[in-house]
């Protein structure tokens, strides 16, 4: 049985709007509908979509904060909204934009409270704390009040707090938001290690597609409450129907190049941009160009994942 099992999940909200005077119209909004997916233990999944697409609604249902309107939902064999407190012991949640640590107290104090409220066996707690302090480089910060930590340091503290009780699943909501490039890189490295060495299942929502490219073999794209894509990154590129681009620098200006399998998108002096499907090989096109034209230089541009996803959003 998959660790997260979602079938035909639906969530509607009733929105009341003033319609002049005292009258109010009542409209039903489908925040999530026909949502079906499953996540196996040990997967690392990126969950992306534009604002208001239904990402946080999904996460809230998975954690038991929100009751689904209809459909089937099981996480770690439990029905989240019915067994919220029980499920809480088996999951970790990191809210990127707000901390759950005690603002005025050293990190250490927040961790100790968590040890008690999660009833983490003391040896287990010590071992975990030592491991995460090492991995996340928190050693010097344990005695610093949280309010004095930088955003990146606090995020590392929050992630440690969510992991001390050995959760099977870690939900991360925008974990890299607001972090500098170096901190982002280190955090991604840590998450990879976490998944690889401890087998913790990760589900992260993000707007930073570099997170996805760096971390996730699998991507789910949600738009208007339904999944518009679920698969690996390469498949996402294909699904997006995106194209790769061959940039050709000719020795002289010329008429648009004509070779099989590629079409000219743009001409600028001696430089021409040819696009071809991203699943086709570049080799035959390059040799065809080289055979018929005097080429000074060649380069290939891979499709930007942003463009692929923008394409998907547009279509749904």
């Amino acid at each position, binding site marked *: 049985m998959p660790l997260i099992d979602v079938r035909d999940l639906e969530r509607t*909200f*009733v929105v009341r709007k003033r319609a002049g005077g005292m009258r109010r119209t009542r409209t039903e909004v489908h925040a999530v509908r026909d949502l079906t997916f499953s996540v196996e233990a040990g997967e690392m999944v990126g969950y992306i979509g534009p604002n208001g697409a239904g990402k946080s*609604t999904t996460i*809230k249902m998975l*954690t*038991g*904060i*929100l*009751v689904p309107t209809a459909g089937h939902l099981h996480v770690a064999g439990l029905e989240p*909204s019915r067994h*919220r*407190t*029980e499920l*809480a*012991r088996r*999951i970790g*949640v990191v*809210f990127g934009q*707000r901390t*759950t640590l*005690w*603002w*005025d*107290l050293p990190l250490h*104090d*927040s961790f100790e*409270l968590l040890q*008690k*409220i*999660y009833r983490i066996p003391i040896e287990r707690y010590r071992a975990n704390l030592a491991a995460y302090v090492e991995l996340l480089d928190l050693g010097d910060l344990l005695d610093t*009040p949280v309010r004095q930590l930088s955003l990146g340091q606090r995020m590392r503290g929050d992630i440690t707090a969510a992991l001390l009780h050995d959760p099977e699943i870690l939900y991360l909501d925008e974990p890299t938001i607001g972090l500098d490039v170096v901190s982002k890189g280190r955090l991604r490295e840590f998450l990879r290690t976490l998944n690889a060495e401890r087998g913790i299942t990760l589900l992260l929502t993000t707007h930073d597609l570099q997170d996805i490219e760096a971390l996730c073999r699998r991507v789910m794209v949600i738009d208007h409450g339904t999944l518009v894509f679920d698969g690996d990154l390469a498949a996402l590129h294909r699904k997006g129907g995106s194209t790769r681009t061959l940039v050709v620098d000719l020795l002289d200006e010329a008429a648009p190049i004509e070779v099989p399998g590629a079409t000219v998108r743009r001409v600028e002096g001696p430089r021409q941009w040819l696009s071809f499907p991203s699943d086709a090989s570049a080799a035959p096109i390059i040799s065809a160009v080289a055979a018929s034209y005097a080429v000074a230089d060649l380069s290939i541009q891979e499709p930007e994942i942003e463009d692929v996803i923008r394409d998907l959003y547009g279509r749904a």
Partner: protein
Amino acid sequence: MGEVLAVVREAPRQYARIARLWVRSSLAYRASFVMLTLASLLLTFLDFVGLALMLHLIGDLDGFALWEIALLYGASGIGIGVADLLIGSVEQIGQHIRSGTLDAMMVRPVPLIVQVCADRFAIRRLGRITQAVAVFAWAAWSVDWTPSKVVVALLMVVSASAIFFALFVTFSCIQFWTQDASEFANAFTYGGNTMTQYPLSIFPSEVLKSLTFVIPVAFANWYPCLYLLDREDPFGMPEWFAVAPPFVAALMCVVAVLAWRTGVRRYTSTGS
């Protein structure tokens, strides 16, 4: 059922752990902690001085002497003081909903009500209790004590706390629907406290009836105090009302739990 009992047994310890961290948090700003504590003591002290001055000028209030009013005042003050100290934070529920901290609490393995009540636990709220205890003790000096009066007095103090406790929770739950209604709740909690600081006989009988049967704060001090003072109810309510507070308190706590559950269900089914 066993599960529920386990939760109830565990709750006070979980509460104490969270509250302790908040106390340590507030000690991080030592100067502001001391000032707030002093301010709170001064405020509650002046509150009573105001009442005492007024009585001194008037002589008595509807036949109640100063010490008798002090007994009413102290009993009600202890009740709301204990409730405010332990669970006063529950009125911040709207704030937790708006800022999203409620979601963070919901993914922790501690009952939501424990977390909400223990949040921002402030030891300075002891000021109100200290003052009320002092006033009550001074007034108790003049009471003509008998064993049954001691029992009624003890039941009164515990029940008064539970009654205000239930009022805080019940009316704070309104914020699950309208998130900015903490003032509305205050009208019933602090409002109820203010009313019961005076002999209820000074109000029209409609007021007494609504404070008995609608928002039953009269059971927090009025009826038991009448017994302690060997007085009959001016409106002819039965004398056994003096021992009714524990039952009223229990009933109100049931209402509070139901309101809380309905509120949480409303939150989990609307997400707003």
